[in-house]
């Protein structure tokens, strides 16, 4: 009786496991892909992969931080360790990045004085950065809430080879199969917090996901494509599992790599990985856009309250706003603050210091406000190009009410003046951060406006090593004969020229 039953189950199991010869529906294609990745286990044929770890080396790139507008994102060498749970869902990315070949050009923290460890975690609806894995549960460790990053991190989780198939299963009848260039393609919508995002997964000849593509909203690039390619699948587990994992992962955003990893080990054996949410993360208030207005001198206001600041300069009939940073929400809050501070005067000019996405992301809102953009010469064609891209996933103010941007390109110098107020704009020379890059100078109040060339440390912080970009800024001030008394950094806090001198060791 037992033997007969055993063979009966075996025959049924074998029949169901065989590739389907007839036209493949989405469910069959997805199931075959799950088998191809070794996810399906047991006679009950369940997807048994719940947790996963993988390690690799290669490069990470600072998205949106290119040295020249339109060039590739700057590269860091990296060691990479990902641990994740599809059941929670949760993911911890532990990256140590460095630029061992010395200073290179671009933003994103370059140059690094020493290797820099970054640990990014998402667990359910919570996101945070850790000083060490498990930070927040051990004395002396820090967990910093980053709720804005939750959806991006969840998307990374579900774009992994196993994750994409799990979500395809979850999509049910909404998953569709097509053929492109002879390859099988599964297309399906995500759900839950990622609702509105469509995933397109292309399978290789062995039914393994080889390319996963999504489109998400980016403040600069609009409907931005993220494309991840997986190749050279192998069983990389220390304990043999017959679960193949890609030994090469490349991810591109905006057409350039953001990740290029050679995977050296993958533990697909459901390793013990957990993601307890620290109390301070769980109780963190939702992020709020806050603008604090500080009068620096007559007709000059420093608009702070977040990570990226702006400066409003009042002229007789209008206002010039230096920097519309981050995104629509930040820029709109800044615009609102300007209107309250300087009522009845339009924002005629929106000065953009440089093309890094954190400084560029809100500029579209200022265009929608009717401001003329003033920026570096090489940035003008780039902005015209990226602003023509569709913004349909999450339309911003300009996307909802399109308006042609008026852009003034500054080659070396531009002066805005009406006799009552003067704002001089200069191209910063010799910087490795971004080229072109503008600084502003207000001769009447002797105030310098700069971004990323001098990011002062918090008060009472121990003095650090001399930063080359700080020295370069000071050299430019001297070169231009600017009589600077105060500095309004677009990161950090109000400083004086003496502070800058101290920072570069010229007391």
């Amino acid at each position, binding site marked *: 009786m*037992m033997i007969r*039953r*055993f063979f009966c*189950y*075996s025959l049924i*199991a*074998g029949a*169901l*496991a065989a590739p389907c010869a007839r036209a493949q529906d989405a469910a069959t294609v997805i199931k075959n892909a799950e*088998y191809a990745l*070794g996810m*399906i*286990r*047991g*006679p*009950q*044929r*369940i997807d*048994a*992969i*719940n*947790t996963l770890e993988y390690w690799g080396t290669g490069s990470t790139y600072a998205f949106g931080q290119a040295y020249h507008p339109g060039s590739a994102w700057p590269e860091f060498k990296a060691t990479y360790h990902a641990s994740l*749970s599809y*059941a*929670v869902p949760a993911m911890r990315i532990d990256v140590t990045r460095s630029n061992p070949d010395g200073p290179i050009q671009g933003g994103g923290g370059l140059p690094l004085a020493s290797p820099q460890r970054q640990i990014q975690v998402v667990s359910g609806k919570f996101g945070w950065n850790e000083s*060490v*894995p*498990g*930070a927040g*549960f*051990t004395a002396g460790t820090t967990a910093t809430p980053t709720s804005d990053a939750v959806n991006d991190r969840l998307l990374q989780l579900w774009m992994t080879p196993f994750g994409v198939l799990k979500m395809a299963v979850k999509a049910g009848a909404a998953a569709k199969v097509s053929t492109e260039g002879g390859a099988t393609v599964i297309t399906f919508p995500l759900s839950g917090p990622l609702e509105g995002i469509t995933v397109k997964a292309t399978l290789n000849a062995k039914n393994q996901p080889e390319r996963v593509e999504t489109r998400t909203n980016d403040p600069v690039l609009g409907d931005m494509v993220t494309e991840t390619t997986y190749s050279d699948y192998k069983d990389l587990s*220390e*304990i*043999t*599992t*017959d*679960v193949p994992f890609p030994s090469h992962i490349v991810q591109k955003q905006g057409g350039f790599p953001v990740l290029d990893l050679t995977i050296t080990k993958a533990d*697909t*054996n*459901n*390793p*013990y*990985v*957990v993601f*307890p949410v620290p109390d301070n993360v769980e109780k963190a208030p939702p992020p709020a856009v806050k603008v604090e207005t500080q009068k620096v001198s007559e007709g000059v206001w420093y608009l702070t309250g977040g990570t990226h600041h702006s400066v409003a300069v009042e002229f007789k009939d209008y206002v010039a706003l230096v920097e519309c940073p981050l995104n629509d929400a930040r820029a709109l809050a800044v615009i609102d603050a300007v209107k309250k501070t300087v009522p009845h005067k339009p924002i005629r000019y929106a000065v953009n210091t440089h093309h890094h996405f954190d400084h560029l992301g809100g500029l579209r809102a200022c265009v929608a406000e009717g401001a003329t953009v003033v920026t570096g010469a090489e940035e003008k064609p780039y902005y015209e190009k990226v602003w023509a891209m569709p913004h349909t996933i999450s339309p911003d103010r300009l996307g909802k009410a399109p308006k042609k941007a008026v852009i003034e390109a500054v080659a070396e110098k531009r002066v805005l003046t009406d006799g009552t107020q003067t704002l001089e704009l200069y191209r910063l020379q010799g910087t490795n951060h971004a080229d072109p890059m503008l600084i502003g100078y207000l001769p009447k109040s002797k105030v310098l406006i700069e971004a990323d060339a001098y990011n002062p440390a918090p008060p009472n912080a121990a003095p650090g090593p001399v930063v080359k970009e700080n020295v370069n800024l000071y050299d430019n001030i001297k070169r231009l004969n600017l009589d600077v008394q105060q500095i309004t950094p677009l990161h950090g806090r109000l400083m004086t020229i003496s502070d800058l001198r101290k920072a570069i060791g010229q007391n």
Partner: protein
Amino acid sequence: MKRTCLGCALAGVVLCLISVSAAAQGNQSTPRTADGHPDLSGVWIGQRAPFVESTDPLAQNLASRDGTLLNFERDNAMIRRSDPNKPMYKPEFWEKVQKLDQNGNTEDPSFGCKPAGVPRMGPPAQLVQTPKLMVFLYMSPAAEGWGDAYRVIMTDGRAHTPLDDLDGTWKGESIGHWEGDTLVIDTIGFNDTSWLDITGYFHSENMHVIERMHRDGDTLTWQATVDDPDVLVKPWTMNTRTLKLNADPKATLTETLPCVEHDLSHLVTKEHH
């Protein structure tokens, strides 16, 4: 370790088939003892309740690869680790858990014929209830530590022996009391040798285990919560196990084969066997 995987699997199949048979008997009212408490006495079946739900009696006990029973997954590694219900260890112990799990062939105490201990030994196969004490009887593979095992749970109202006066043991000191119709067993006084499960889940000597047993007709549920502030971030409640009463009044436990370790030195991989 001392038997082949197929032997274990067949034993599991028998248990499951018996379980199906018992379940077919239908629900019964919950009998009570003279003192009014639910009578938990009896032979109970189905101690192992995998988190993977399946109506296939073979499915819960046989591991396969590529969807065919003819190609067994050699160590059942994927499925048995895929339970999302995990104890939340403090960060400084995460690596230790992983290493213990990866080296389970040599590190898992039950692989060396040692007792499973509480709570890994789970609910009993037979329960004898008296007004002042309860006797839990086990048989492998339910006890997991290989070999028949027993527990005595005092229900006479006594308090625990002070922890400092207890010698740490595999089963600890168990004191039971009733909360309504639920038997609550409070156990302290452990050694730190046993594991909570096969996946490297160790514990400290300060572990405190609360088990809850509730009978509803011919169904007995068992749930254990592990509190161990020395190593866990928060208490861990294990998956509930559901047992069915063996309705055969002549049912008895069969003797388990003795555990004799002789395979370990021949293992050449880290796969569990």
